[in-house]
């Protein structure tokens, strides 16, 4: 009896603690039953893997350079790298000028995912906008920041139900800079990053979904879209340059593309079962600030358009938002399965 009372006291304490966090509008700390050693190994992987990649590239590069006699100059060409110049990000902005004049560097060729045993365990979800930054809005006042949070919460529940670990960049109506979002994602050591947004299209009859991963664009529409999503002004020029250099580091770019394709496919298949007329606006690259700052495969999904009255009406329905969350979930799962199969 005494032990039951003790257990009850402990349970009550934890129940109260969780409620206090709820009262304060904070997310309770995760009490995972998973052994701490697992997290340690996981952290070790993230430290060791980049070092191993760097060492491998360096050693093989040195060997090849010595073989070609170029090693002494220090300008040798590692065999994993190519010297093709970077495609210039043709953006008619001051950033583009700086980028074009930046010293050229060798773009690594993609490294196959078989090099490392990859798996998706932790997903970082980023509900777009929030707080003072409301994003776009429908004519009748439905706000992007609310929709993205709602869909992200639904997606989180689905992912957690499937044993993924999930971190959210925001769980309430907080104003969060792009820098902060990237920082949170990197600190959480997410395996992938999914930013959720809702679009506004000039053609108000147009509908459709599109998914982005980081890269340059010369499409004026995408430039405008990126400018509007990057609108918090927190992106420095140097960061943009550094980020676009990182874009070409093979694995991350390739994995981002694969994730974007899986999510886009899933969104499209799901939404077309409701309405065959939903347009495939495609998988695209664009320099979104939030993708620039993340260090893991990252995508930004525009899951609809508030400019469309049809979409706005649909977004009002919780079951449609659940449907969208399920489509995103399917896409992430498909990507994760594919990753596990290929690295097995």
């Amino acid at each position, binding site marked *: 009896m005494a032990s039951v009372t003790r257990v009850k006291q402990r349970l009550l304490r934890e129940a*109260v603690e969780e409620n206090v966090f709820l009262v304060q509008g904070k*997310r309770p700390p995760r009490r995972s039953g998973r052994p701490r050693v697992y997290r340690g190994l996981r952290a070790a992987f993230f430290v060791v893997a980049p070092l191993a990649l760097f060492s491998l590239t360096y050693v093989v590069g040195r060997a090849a350079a010595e073989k070609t006699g170029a090693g002494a100059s220090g300008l040798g060409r590692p065999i994993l790298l190519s010297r093709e110049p970077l495609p210039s990000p043709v953006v008619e902005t001051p950033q583009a000028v700086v980028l074009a004049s930046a010293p050229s560097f060798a773009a690594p060729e993609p490294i196959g995912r078989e090099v490392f045993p990859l798996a998706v365990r932790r997903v970082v979800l980023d509900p777009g906008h929030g707080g003072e930054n409301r994003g776009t809005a429908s004519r009748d006042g439905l706000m992007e920041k609310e929709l993205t949070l709602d869909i992200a919460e639904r997606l989180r529940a689905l992912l957690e*139900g499937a044993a993924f670990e999930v971190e959210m960049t925001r769980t309430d109506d907080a104003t969060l800079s792009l820098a902060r979002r990237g920082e949170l994602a990197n600190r959480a050591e997410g395996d992938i990053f999914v930013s959720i947004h809702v679009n506004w299209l000039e053609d108000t009859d147009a509908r459709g979904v599109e998914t982005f991963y980081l890269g340059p664009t010369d499409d004026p529409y995408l430039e405008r879209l990126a400018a509007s999503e990057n609108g918090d002004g927190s992106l420095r020029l140097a960061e943009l340059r550094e980020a676009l250099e990182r874009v070409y580091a093979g694995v991350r770019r390739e994995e981002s593309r694969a994730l974007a394709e899986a999510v886009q496919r899933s969104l499209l298949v799901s939404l077309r079962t409701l309405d065959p007329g939903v347009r495939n606006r495609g998988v695209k690259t664009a320099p979104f600030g939030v993708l620039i700052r993340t260090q893991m495969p990252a995508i930004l999904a525009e899951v609809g358009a508030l400019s469309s009255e049809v979409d706005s009406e649909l977004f009002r329905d919780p079951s449609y938002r659940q449907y969208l969350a399920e489509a995103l979930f399917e896409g992430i799962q498909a990507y994760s399965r594919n990753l596990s199969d290929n690295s097995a």
Partner: protein
Amino acid sequence: MAKEKESGDEHVLNLGIDLGTSRSSVSASNGARHMIDSYVGWPVDMVARKVIKRDVLIGREALDNRLMLDLHRPLERGLIREGSEKAIAAVRELLRHLMALAGVDEALEKGLKVRAVVGVPAEALRVNKQQLRSAMSGLVDSLMIVSEPFAVAYGLDALLHALIVDLGAGTTDFCVMKGRYPREEDQRTLTQAGDFVDQQLMQLFQASNPEANVTGHMVSEWKENYSFVGEARDRVVVEAPVQGKPTQFDITEEMQAACESLLPHVTETMIDLISRVEPEYQARMRGNVILSGGTALIKGLGVSLQDALQEVGGGKVRVVKDPVYVGSDGGLAIAIDAPESDWELLQA
């Protein structure tokens, strides 16, 4: 436990509330226990208001007068339906009514503090809980929200090596009790529950009797009166109109198939959760599976689930004696046991 401490604090009225999709119940430290159907209805027009002579009807009364009402079942899968101010208003009416039945108005008149513990589905999101806090604001002095199966486990003292399966109308909630407050991985929520059985029964009935005219409420009542799994002891005969003429239908097979459609979902989740427990405790967990909630009243359900456990080494499944009140009783036990200092932190 609740009764023992009932007279512990004369200045407080403690409440345990099980807010359910189909039915909600309240247990109070003054001994009151009430259950109502989770329906709220407002008169559709002036004529209806004149006939009903009330601004709002709640529970069975609302169901019985539904033709004159703008009727709401404000809880979907055990949570406040989203995007609807009417749903929030309906939940507040429901709570107000439940609390009035439990003697809250008298308690307030006497200057007592009112504290409530409300159970929600195991996988309720934080936003859902915050919505509930908003709906309860001003109705109680302090509020604690816990997962429904945890409340059940607490009330039954089933805190260690027990698997609680709380079968409601909107959700079936699972909770593995390991002597600690349940973590996310200890809990699971399925949407296959009482309403799911209703849907299956409706589809099967309509497929074999397309000429009959039935509503969801009729089907739901059939299930509540005659549901079973396993071998049928009696034929299930119900009445439904065909072109206005009352006609009898034997729905034994349909009822059995609809109720048994629940079994694979519950069995699979039950076995999966048990298989995640440390191996040395799995047999004890299998031997302590507890079914609660209104849908646990399906005849033969416990025996069928116990049979299903045979494939993983056997176990024992029991249905609690009072499955409808066990959640609110558990909530009440928590409310009474929580120390004063903790309640101070949880003001509504």
